[in-house]
């Protein structure tokens, strides 16, 4: 299946055109900064930093974070096609994808909790303990995804 994918016209354009691969990499870097940056800032607030920013107002960042996620899902799929067989058998790459999948689940849990409980956390002055743990896990997963992603190019 991955060999077939590598032979499709899209994969050949990504791999062989002068600007296909660099432009997709550039998009992937912009998306990375947006999704990791935005979600990690939200997580740091949930852990207890930036006390002047209310938990209720954090919801503003949700769409921005997911926009970065979508940019990277799309650019990532294109990048994947060009070396599908290599990526599909690369341990760091598979680790990266697993960690991103788990980080997305963390983001979904966090925003569900925030929708129901953010105003209560503002009253109490701190987020629920379970949410703080998930926020720390989220930071660890995004950091791990960056590490595994970079190592994909080397291992």
């Amino acid at each position, binding site marked *: 299946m991955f060999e077939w994918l590598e032979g499709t016209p899209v994969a050949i354009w990504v791999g062989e055109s002068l600007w296909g*691969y*660099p432009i997709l*990499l*550039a998009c992937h*870097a*912009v998306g*990375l*900064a*947006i999704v*990791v*940056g*935005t979600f*990690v*800032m939200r997580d*740091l607030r949930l852990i207890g*930093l*930036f*006390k*002047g*920013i*209310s938990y*209720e*107002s*954090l*919801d*503003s*960042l949700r769409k*921005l974070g997911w926009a970065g996620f979508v940019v990277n899902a799309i650019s990532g799929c294109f990048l994947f096609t060009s070396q599908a067989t290599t990526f599909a058998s690369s341990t760091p790459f598979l680790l990266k994808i697993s960690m991103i999948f788990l980080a997305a689940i963390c983001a979904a849990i966090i925003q569900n909790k925030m929708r129901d409980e953010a105003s209560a956390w503002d009253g109490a002055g701190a987020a629920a303990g379970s949410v703080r743990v998930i926020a720390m896990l989220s930071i660890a997963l*995004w*950091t791990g995804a*960056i*590490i595994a*992603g*970079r*190592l994909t*190019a*080397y291992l």
Partner: protein
Amino acid sequence: MQAFVSAVEGSAIHQLVVGSAWAWPVMEIIHFIGLSLLLGSLLVIDLRMAGFFRKIDVTATHQLLPWTFIGFGLNLATGVLFVMGDPARYTANIGFWWKMFLVAVAGLNALWFWVKINPVMKTWEPHADTPVLAKTIAWISLCSWFGVLLLGRLIPYIGTG
């Protein structure tokens, strides 16, 4: 420039960077974490200062600034090491010089913020729109830093001038 390249290539730090197979990937990982902190904190600060996200108290967004500086510090340190590890390649690369130019623009813009906006920011209404000058500075900041990111990623692909 040739004298600079020769001097760097004779230095102990250059030997350290090129001497280990792990040095370069570890520096890249730190550089990527740094850019996420730098751009992530600036996205929140600058987009609010540009008038978006009005539910967020604009006077409290400066609490994220330490993370901007942590991100910048990590990337300055690893960035200097990249140049010391491969001085001939960077100094000959036009993309690298445009990137440095945009870092300088972003730095001057931050100075502009410090002089004109920072002293009056505390008097702003927490959830109101922002002045035109603040919006201008916010957009210059976002455009220059995302330009830095794009040029940085494209350095391996841009010609050597």
